Structures are given as C-alpha cells and as structure tokens.
C-alpha cells in the first residue's frame, strides 16, 4: 500500500520536523485520554474522588475490586460475554454462507440482496430495539440474552457478510476448481482448500462481531432489565454510582476490546476498507 506522493525528495528539515511533531501530537491525542481512564481505574477510590488529581496512579486495585464486588456487576459481565458470544456465532454462521454465495455465484436477485445489506448502513440500527422490544414480549424473548443477541446480530451481520464476501473473493476460484478436478466435491473442496485459507479472516470477523456486541449500549439498555449487559448496567448507574465505579467499569469495558483489536489489527483495513466500499 505504498501509494504516497514521495514526501522525502526535496523536503526541508523543518517540514520533516513539523510532520513528526504533528504525528506525535495525534498519537498523544488518542492515547492520553485512555491513559487517564486507566490511571483512574488503578487509583484508590479516595484518590479518584479527591482533588487535585495526580497524573501518576497510586496503582491500587481497590476501585476495581469495589467494582467487581458491586451488586450486579459480575452478572452483567457474564451477560455481556454470553450476548457477545451468541452474536459472534450467529453473525458468522449466518453471514459467512451469504458472503460465500455473493463471491462465487452470479444469480438472479444478487443485487437485491446486496442492496438490502447496504440499506442496513443507511439506517440507525439501534432503533431496532424499539419494535423488537414489542416483538420479544409476544414471543417470550423479552429481557433475555438470546433476544438481545438477535438485535446485536442484526448490527453485526451486514459486516460479517461483506467481510466474508471480501475474504472469499480474495481466494482465487481456480483453487477450488483445481480441487474439483482433483477429485473433490463442492463440500470437500471447501473443507480442504477454502476453509483453511479463510480461517484467520473468519476469526477476525468473528472477533469484530464480538466487539460490536460487547460495546453496544442503546439496544442493550432498552431490551434488558434483569439480564443487563455491562454497558447497559453502567449506563443505568451513571446518575447514582460513585466515580470510581464508573471509571473501573469503563476500564473493564475498554480493555478486552483493545486486546481483541490488537489481534485483528492485520485485518482492520482489508475488512473495514473493503467492507465499506
């Protein structure tokens, strides 16, 4: 992806310095707020509520322990994991076959399906929580982990379809055809040739689905009461919870997502880039 206009030829020293400084400032702009959150989460509650703040944390797990021990937190964490896991499984299992079909076949209705997928982009999807709340009451899925996972899957599915579509499209069809001429049927060719090649990408798209669900607030808050996920729990305790609970909660919310993103960083651009075209 080396596309750039060549900045080095004829570039002055001053220009290079201001370029470097701008890049570093932008890095700080991203990193400092995260540092401050984590610094807060690793400070004792007294320091978190005290004033003025120290820039170095006291490194003390009291806030985190308080958060974990707080009524409803472990349950919310568990709900979050369940919902995110279900979302991940459903998004990949439903999305990947569609992505494969789009990449390998020409058929009537293909563009209609693509339009439907792209339409989901132009709609504020969290609003789906409203009608779903009513639908779920009718079928007994209200306030359930599974019900929320369905809404989150709607959020994650279009991405899963487009990402797997680009993954499958990236694998030359000749590889599959070669397998067919060497004695495989369609399923065998898929299992022996295509699947091993897309597995890392599928894993990355699964992680994306997981993070999508893990981070979602609005639908989770509207659709759950007893089975609140962590974001829904935090949202509802914003008014009355002490500061150290919020910051510890925020840190617990942020860290897994960062970790996951680190593992899929290689796929970030191919996925978001292509999926968004």
């Amino acid at each position, binding site marked *: 992806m080396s596309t750039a206009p060549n900045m080095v030829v004829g570039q002055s020293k001053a220009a290079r310095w201001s370029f470097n400084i701008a890049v570093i400032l932008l890095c700080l702009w991203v990193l400092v707020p995260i540092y401050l959150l984590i610094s807060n989460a690793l400070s004792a509650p007294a320091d978190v509520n005290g004033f003025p703040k120290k820039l170095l944390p006291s490194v003390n797990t009291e806030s985190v322990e308080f958060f974990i021990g707080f009524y409803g937190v472990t349950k919310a964490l568990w709900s979050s994991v369940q919902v995110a896991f279900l979302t991940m499984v459903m998004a990949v299992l439903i999305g990947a076959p569609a992505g494969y079909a789009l990449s390998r076949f020409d058929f009537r209705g293909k563009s209609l399906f693509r339009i439907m997928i792209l339409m989901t982009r132009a709609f504020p999807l969290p609003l789906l929580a409203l009608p779903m709340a009513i639908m779920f009451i009718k079928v007994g899925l209200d306030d359930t982990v599974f019900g929320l996972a369905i809404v989150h899957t709607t959020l994650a599915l279009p991405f899963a379809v487009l990402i797997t579509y680009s993954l499958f499209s990236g694998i*030359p069809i*000749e*590889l599959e*055809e*070669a*397998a*067919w*001429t*060497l*004695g*495989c*049927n369609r399923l*065998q060719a898929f299992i*022996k*040739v295509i699947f*091993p*090649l897309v597995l890392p990408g599928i894993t990355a798209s699964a992680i994306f689905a997981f993070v999508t669900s893990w981070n979602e607030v609005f639908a989770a808050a509207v659709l759950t009461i007893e089975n609140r996920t962590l974001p829904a729990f935090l949202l509802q305790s914003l008014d009355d919870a002490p500061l150290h609970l919020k910051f510890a909660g925020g840190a617990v919310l942020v860290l897994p997502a960062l970790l996951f993103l680190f593992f899929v960083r290689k796929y970030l651009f191919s996925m978001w880039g292509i999926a968004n075209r």
Partner: protein
Amino acid sequence: MAEINIKQVAKRFGKTDALHSIDLTVEDQEFVVLLGASGCGKTTLLRIVAGLETASSGEVHIGGRRVDHLPPKDRGIAMVFQNYAVFPHLTVYENIAFGLRMAKLDEKEIDNRVNRTASLMHIDALLKRYSGQLSGGQRQRVAVARALATEPEVILMDEPLSNLDALLRMEMRAELKGILAQSKTTTIYVTHDQVEAMSMADRIAIMEAGKIIQADTPVEIYRNPAAHFVGSFIGNPPMNFLPAKKMDSSTWQVAGASYHGPASDKSEIQFAIRPEDLIVDANGPLQATVKLVEPLGSHLLASCNVENTLFRVALDSDAQVKAGDTLSLQPMSDRVRWFDTETKLALQ
C-alpha cells in the same frame, strides 16, 4: 483409451452466444491446441470439457462415456490452470498428493507417485516448500506434477505458460511437449500464443467468436488457411491480402497483373500471399512502395503500399532497402491462396 468427443456444444451467457454448436473430436493420445484471441470461447470450451462450466446444449464424451452431466471429479480428467492454483496452505508434496489422497490410494503408492512425478518435473528438492516460497516457473512445474500424478486419461491445460517470462516459456514448452507425449495422455491445451500452438500441437483448432474455424495440423493451418481469418491470424506477420478482379473464367487481375486462379462466379475475390513467399525480381508483376523497414535480425521486414493496401514483405537481412524505394515482387506461384470476399472462405 480416452478419445474426447465434443458434440454440438453451445453456450449462452444471457443473450450472448459464447459458443455456437461446437463439434470436435480429439483422438486418444492426441495433443490438440485451442487457439484464438481472448474472448473467442476457447477457455469456455475447455471448462465445459472439464465440467467447471455447464454447456447450454450439446454433449461431451470422454473415452466413449457421456460426461456432460458429471461433476469434474468423475470425468477422469486433470487440469492445469493459468495461475497454477497451487494450494498455498499445503506443501509441494501435499499438493501433488492431493488428488491421490482424494482417490484414497494407500500411503506407499502415494509416496511413490509423488516422488516419481516430482523427479519427472525436476522439483524433487522442493517437496517440503510452500507455494509462497516458489518462483513462477517452479509453481508451474508443481501444477503439472499435480495433474500428472493422478495419471489421468485426459489433461486439460488453460494457458499454462502465459504467466512465465519469454525464455522460461520456451524452455517449458519443449519440456511439456516431451513429458505429455511420454505420458500418453490425451491433451487439450488452450493458448493465445500461436508459436506455442504451432510448436506443441498435433492438431490446432482455431477459434473465433465462438466457432472453430479450422482444425488441422500446424503446417496445414499455416500453408492452407481455410478462411481469411486464419490467414490473418496465423503467422507473424500474417498473410497479405489484395483484391482480385475477374478477367475471365479463372483469370484474376491483382494490382495490375493477371494471375491464374480458381474458377468462381464472383466478380471480385481476394488474393493472399505470405510475406516470405515473395521474391524480389526486376520483372515481378507486383510494384510495392516501401514505407517502413524493420531489421529483425533473421530477416528484414518491409511494410509497403500496394494499391493503398498494407503489404508486408520479408526480405533477406542484407537487403539494401529504404523507405521510398519501389520493389518489384514475384509471388511464389504455389504459395498463392484465394479467398471469397463475402464468405471469407478459401477458394480452390
């Protein structure tokens, strides 16, 4: 015994006809090349034989068995793809063994065959490598080895050499020809490279716009093109064509001189001659004005103007010719060919 019979095979993509009722028989152990420009339908035809594409109508028989309803794996074929399609997640060894494992051969036989074909293709040393660690030429060899290892009755090759550089292509061309002759398989080979076709084929099928125009031996195709298209496509540079006006029953006037030609009731037909079949002769009937001279080493190519038509002449590389000269040329009488202006077919 694996003869391939293609009977009235047609293929439509939507409203366009990619193939118009193709008939072609490939004899057992014969090497047939499908030659044509891109988009002429040659690859589609090959893929229909392989079972990767379904014909809109017609039948395909391999070894006397009708196969057009069978999936590729049940047709007894092997195929070599243009981009090699060497599985990137498997070693060279496992790539060659792939078809053998699918056929559930025992481990000893697989090992034997992999080693045998690998040494035949000179890739013994690469067996543990992955495709990412191979050069284009090596990948090509793996792809051929993988096809040969299954000992198929029929090998289908889709422009297998087109991604190699010129020197390597020439080397592989000769090697492939030898290996395929030895393996006694029936081969259909698709290419757009006429030199490749001429040098390798027992028989060449020239395709244009979804039709086979002529299927014959390389020399016959070169010497006796069945249609105007074949003459203008084969040969580098291709045949020269000039309009011929009727004088009497079988005498035709070409660029001011008269020639004995075929009997035809048409008032105008076409005269054709290859650039190398012209002799410079002070008494020659054809007057050609030289426009451009290209020294090509083995010979010298002069692009001339005869009656406002481009006319190429291959001359000896020592010939002293420059732009603006006028050449008097004598066509070699046994090499002159005639074509119908309307049907574009050869006239006897």
